[in-house]
Every structure is written in C-alpha cells, then in structure tokens.
C-alpha cells in the first residue's frame, strides 16, 4: 500500500464535507428530516407509499443537480468525472446500488453521515459493511481480475 499525500485535496474534501454536514443539520433543524439521498429519491417514485412527502423530496433532488451545475459554473473543469466502467457496468451496478440501498435502508449519506451522527447501531454496521464490500470489490476488479 502506498498512501497518496495531497494536503490541498484533503482541505478541499474537508470543506466539501463541512458543507454536506451543514446541509444535513439544516434539513433536520428546519424540516425535521434525515438527509438520506436513497430514501429521498425512492420517496418520489410511483412506488412510494407516502405522497405527502413528495414535494420537499423532489425539491431536494432538484437542488442536488443544481448544486452540481452551480459548482461547474463557478469552477469550470473542476467537476471531474473519470468513469470506471462501460455502459453495461453502469447499468448493472446502478441496478445493484438502487436495490441494495433500499434493501439496506440507506446509503453513504443516510447511514454514513446522519445515522452515525445519531450513533445508530444499524447505521454503523451498514457503513462498515458497504465500505468493506466496496474495498473488496475494488481489490477484486483492480488487482485480481
């Protein structure tokens, strides 16, 4: 293992993380809701059971895309995106990510940021599980296959 040391990247990531945390604190303090992206997205699909929650969820998702657009406008070229797999990989993995996050009641935001902050036992276990499986998958794809 070699560790990539880029302190200016770490600061940038820290700033991004603080912004994410600030957003999650605002959403809980103002609307009383958890900023878990997979639950918010699934909540605007036709399969969602509670329709009274539709509008704030839809607006949050619109805000996410706008956030990416605003960032790309403010810092042209900074929204880098080096794809790791082809069309088929994107489609299959997308399906797995969607299925898995619903089955496991959350993703990196809901479990990793909000759940751990509430010291939820389920979220701590979920975060360790998806991190470990992500690392194992990267090991297999990049060092074994």
């Amino acid at each position, binding site marked *: 293992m070699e560790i990539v040391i880029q302190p200016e990247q770490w600061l*940038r990531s820290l700033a991004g*993380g603080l912004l994410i945390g600030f957003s999650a604190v605002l959403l809980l303090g103002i609307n*009383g809701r958890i900023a878990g992206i997979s639950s918010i997205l699934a909540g605007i699909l036709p399969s969602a059971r509670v329709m009274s929650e539709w509008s704030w969820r839809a607006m*949050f998702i619109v805000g996410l895309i706008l956030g990416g657009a605003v960032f790309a406008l403010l810092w042209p070229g900074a929204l880098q995106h080096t794809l*790791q797999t082809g069309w088929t990989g994107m489609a299959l993995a997308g399906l797995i990510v969607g*299925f898995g*996050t619903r089955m496991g009641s959350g993703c990196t935001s809901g479990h990793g940021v909000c759940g751990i*902050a*509430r010291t939820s036992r389920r979220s701590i*276990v979920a975060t360790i599980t998806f991190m470990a499986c992500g690392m194992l998958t990267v090991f297999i794809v990049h060092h074994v296959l």
Partner: protein
Amino acid sequence: MTLRKSLSALLCGLLFGIGLSLGGMTDPAKVVAFLDLAGHWDPSLAFVMGGALLLTTPAFRWLLRLKRPMFEERFVLPTKQDLDFNLLAGSALFGIGWGITGLCPGPAIVALATGVPQFFVFVAAMIAGMWLSDRVTLLQTRRQMMRAGLPSASNLSGS
C-alpha cells in the same frame, strides 16, 4: 406552509450538491482510489465524511433535544433498531455496486449536471433497482400479513 418546506429542501439539496462536488465524491476515479487500499490509496474522501460528521454529530445531538424542528410538528427519524438480514445484505450489494462504478446515489444524481450520458444510464438503472426492491418488500409484507391473517380468518369462519 408547504412552500417554505420545499424551498428549504431546495436550499439543502443545493448545499449538499455543492458539498459533494467540492469534496470530490462526484469523481468515480477518486472514490475508487479511496477504496483501493492495495494500490495507491488516496485518503482524501475520508475527510468528506469526517468533515460532515464533525458538524452533524454535535448538532444532531443538540437539535434532537429540542421539542420540534422549525417548520414541522416533529422530527421524523428511522424507527428500526435491529440488525437484520436486509440491512447487511442490502449494504453489501450497495458496496459491490459502489466499488464497480465509484458511484453512490447522491454523487450520481449530482453528476447528471455534467450531461455525461453514462451517468443517466446509472441513475435510471438505480431508480429501477429501487423500485424493484420496494416491490419485493411490499410483496414480502403482504405475504407476512396473509400468513398472520389467514389462521384467524379461518377461526372466524369456523366459529
């Protein structure tokens, strides 16, 4: 009432999206470099989760001691407590997909702003997967209710 809740959600989404972009979560190469312990490990993204938790951990503790949030009657929090099969299997599946693509749900949605068609394929497939999973859960719940309901129903008809 609904308008201010929607507008605050829009603002939160916007900040969240800028945070994910600034943090580097929207670059699949960076995510894979973070997960690649055996290669050139790039720990940058640990600072994203660390930075977020630095705020959420004390602030959530303080907020949840309040009676209610600003625009709502009450806080809406997850209720499940037990570590079940679905939590572990679902998180494991998610981890596999995350490792293959370097994309988790939030950054994938934010990356739609780049206009790169592969991200649209990923998000469409992710939505299909969510829908499928919710259908399975619904069918499971129905079957459980049927099982629980049938004996009592037959008792009723017998008496």
